[in-house]
């Protein structure tokens, strides 16, 4: 990188705000999507919105592309620097700026970790509802970029349903507020279109987040089934009964075994599938719902329905679920997680297709997913030292997503398109749809300097990853 550019960046953010050494930068070569890697030429870690704005203004003037990054827990390569030499990390923007308990909102900088928000208001009986499985590490800015979900979105909605307003540094360095701290703000909902734009509309530096009351009571069930089929029937039964569970998660044999080995919760390792069903709300409503849920499970031949005895057991159950991906490390050196969505009633069909794909490509695939909203997370296991297996993983992943689209679904429920699924966008969007998205991006990011080469495939130049492009030796 040009020394003058480096000097200017040092001037803006100070020596402790620049990561220049090769070995230190290599940490930033990928997010949770590890099939592709690229080391940024420099990483800057601004300390304030003003520093972000100054860095961006300078890069815009120099026509140097940049990519924003939170904690790097994304799963689609959203912060992979592709032809973007400068990475702007938000880790120093880590302050909760303002808490308003009575009006139930928090203003937090974008580098604040998701869980810190809930922890800051826990004592007062409030919470920030979106709870991605990586919530102990992932940042608010990253959640906003990806419009992240989590197990409890079935009842509470995803990130966009809980954001009142954003402070954004636009790709030309201007600082704007989109939305606000009150509910109805006149004008176009630019906050709504910026959430989920995967960092291509600018860099979010601060956000006003809605707080939700903690439920008065929870009840968490572990229902054990001989087969995936019976578990999915139960999911449909619960949804059809008019109950809106807080969460409805499924895990298959392979993942149950991995989790049990890792966390010793007491999962039945011989079960075909288990469901974690959680209801919450007023204590008075839980007994009647419990009866209904137990009856539906029984009707669908549940072998056993356990209820978490206390909060400690509930937390242990959720800890196991949320760390499921980590437990896969015991089964395989590498894995790739897909994030397709199907209409809820098509879950049995997609699971059947996943089994077929697993056989066809000779890959082990574990399933742990948000069954209640049809958001699947097949985990494809491989060893990156085996080039042929790596290639098969990429192919198998695509085939699963194609099947989701065939069933009326989508390529991604909560992980984003990133670089990973760009090539498949034409499966669900027409050239006209993609054109309008390109135009929308140009409204915010006219020179495409902010997080280029993401989401929208370049017309004609179909991006087709069959092998990792920029694998960097570590």
């Amino acid at each position, binding site marked *: 990188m040009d020394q003058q550019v480096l000097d200017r960046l040092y001037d803006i953010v100070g020596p402790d705000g620049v990561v220049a050494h090769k070995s230190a930068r290599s940490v930033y070569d990928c997010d949770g999507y590890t099939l592709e890697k690229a080391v940024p030429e420099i990483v800057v870690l601004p300390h304030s919105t003003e520093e972000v704005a100054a860095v961006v203004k300078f890069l815009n003037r120099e026509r140097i592309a940049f990519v924003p990054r939170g904690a790097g827990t994304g799963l689609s390569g959203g912060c992979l620097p592709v032809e973007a030499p400068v990475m702007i990390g938000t880790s120093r923007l880590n302050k909760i700026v303002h808490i308003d308990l009575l009006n139930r909102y928090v203003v937090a900088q974008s580098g604040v970790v998701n869980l810190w928000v809930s922890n800051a208001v826990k004592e007062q009986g409030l919470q920030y509802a979106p709870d991605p499985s990586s919530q102990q590490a992932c940042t608010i800015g990253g959640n906003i970029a990806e419009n992240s979900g989590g197990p409890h979105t079935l009842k509470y909605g995803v990130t966009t349903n809980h954001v009142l307003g954003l402070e954004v540094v636009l790709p030309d360095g*201007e600082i704007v507020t989109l939305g606000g701290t009150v509910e109805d703000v006149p004008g176009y909902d630019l906050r709504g279109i910026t959430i989920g734009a995967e960092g291509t509309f600018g860099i979010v530096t601060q956000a006003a987040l809605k707080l939700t009351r903690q439920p008065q009571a929870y009840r968490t069930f572990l229902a054990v089934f001989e087969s995936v089929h019976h578990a999915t029937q139960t999911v*449909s039964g619960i949804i059809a009964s008019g109950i809106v569970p807080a969460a409805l998660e499924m895990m298959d044999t392979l993942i149950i075994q991995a989790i049990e080995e890792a966390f010793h919760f007491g999962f039945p390792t011989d079960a075909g599938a288990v469901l974690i069903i959680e209801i919450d709300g007023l204590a008075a409503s839980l*007994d009647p719902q419990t009866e209904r849920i137990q009856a539906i499970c029984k009707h669908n031949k549940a072998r056993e329905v356990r209820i978490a005895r206390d909060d400690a057991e509930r937390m242990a159950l959720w800890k196991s679920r949320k760390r499921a991906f980590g437990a896969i490390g015991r089964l395989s050196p590498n894995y790739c997680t897909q994030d397709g969505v199907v209409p809820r009633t098509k879950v049995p069909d997609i699971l059947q297709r996943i089994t077929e794909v697993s056989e066809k490509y000779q890959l082990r695939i574990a399933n742990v997913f948000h069954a209640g909203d049809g958001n699947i997370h097949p985990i494809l296991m491989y060893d990156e030292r085996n080039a042929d297996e790596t290639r098969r993983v990429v192919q198998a992943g695509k085939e699963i997503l194609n099947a989701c689209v065939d069933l009326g679904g989508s390529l991604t429920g909560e992980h984003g398109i990133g670089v990973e699924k760009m090539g498949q966008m034409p499966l669900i969007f027409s050239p006209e749809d993609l054109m309008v998205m390109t135009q929308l991006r140009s409204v915010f990011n006219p020179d495409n300097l902010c997080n280029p080469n993401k*989401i929208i495939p370049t017309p004609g130049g179909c991006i087709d990853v069959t092998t990792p492009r920029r694998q960097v030796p570590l």
Partner: protein
Amino acid sequence: MTQAAGHPPSPQFIIDGQAPETVVYPASIEEVSRLLKEANEHGRAISPVGHGAFLHLGGVPKRYEQALCMTGLSAIVDYQPTDMTITVGAGMSLAQLQAILGENGQWLPLDPPCLERATVGGVIAANLNGPTRFSQGTVRDFLIGIKVVRADGTLIKGGGQVVKNVAGYDLPKLYCGSFGTLGVIVEATFMIRPRPEAQTTLALTFSSAEKAGEAALKLTGSDMQPFFLELANFSPLSSSRDQQGDAYCLFVGFAGMQEEIDDQRNHLRDVVGDDIGSIEELSVDEAQTLSQALRDFPVSGPATLRCKVSLQPTQLATFCSDLAAEARRRYAPARLLARAGNGILYAAFEGDTVPDDQILSLVDWIRVHATGSNGFGVVEEISSALKERANVWGSVGKAFPLMQRLKDTLDPKGILNPGRFVGGI
């Protein structure tokens, strides 16, 4: 499908006294597409219209040559009760939609004014909602897919048919509240919910706005989960429209399973405390009358001026009593209804003889006091002659250049509802 020339258009299509030269009635997406393409080529200003129930909203049209009546696009495109999703044409009325969903014990959790005359497209474009937004949310929380015809006639879509989806930019959000200025909404997919099994409403009275506001905050700060929570300086149930001094009412709805309703009703008094005039559970008939009145309030009864103010919930009560006093000083009695948990206030001012400058000074008062605390005041109804001076949408600040660029990108010739949205967009 075009209304014969020479016939005066029905009042359904009049906007601020302006009648369109033609009214067209497309019956399919293809026809909408063809009509827009044609209008765009000729630079003809066009306004999408449903049943015309909300045409008083927004600025005076800069030009208005053609009304595009959308009520012909009212089909169910796809309804999967077990997936809890429905796709319908944008011209379907909310009443019709709720009736279809009701057959399966489901509903779209939105209760905007004029259910019979509010269309799906209108609800999205004008971001219409009602009392249950407190517990359920607004249209952006339920709209998961959208089809739109762009100004040049191109059909585009965003989102999809599934309840969780982050593929591509979130176009459905962009069209919520876009006021028909970025394209014509032709089809919408919603996620839906089971209809609550039971419901009840309680009416509480207080001797002041502050006491009512205090009670509302105690409720939102408790474990209770009201279905709706409305604060008013009048009661739609009493025959007299005149306010009883400074008395305020709080209407609290509970919905769900009978067990949770009973539990909350029994604990309501403990939560709100003793500083209360009366507390009464409404009969089924009264509750129905009330809920319709609360829903329709933003468009019902005569008013010289109507405003919607967005504030922090904690600011509502003081704002209400100060505003009521300001209105009294101007001989423009105010009826105030607030979505107490959301910080949204609807204010309707009567008094046909109030001079224009007094009306405008009320608007100013509202703006100054709302924006002073990061809120917003929008004029929803005022005589067309005063609209420009009142600047109905108010200022949107530094984000405006982005909005203008967005408009110029999606509607470069400015044919869609010109002049009716923020900053004259």
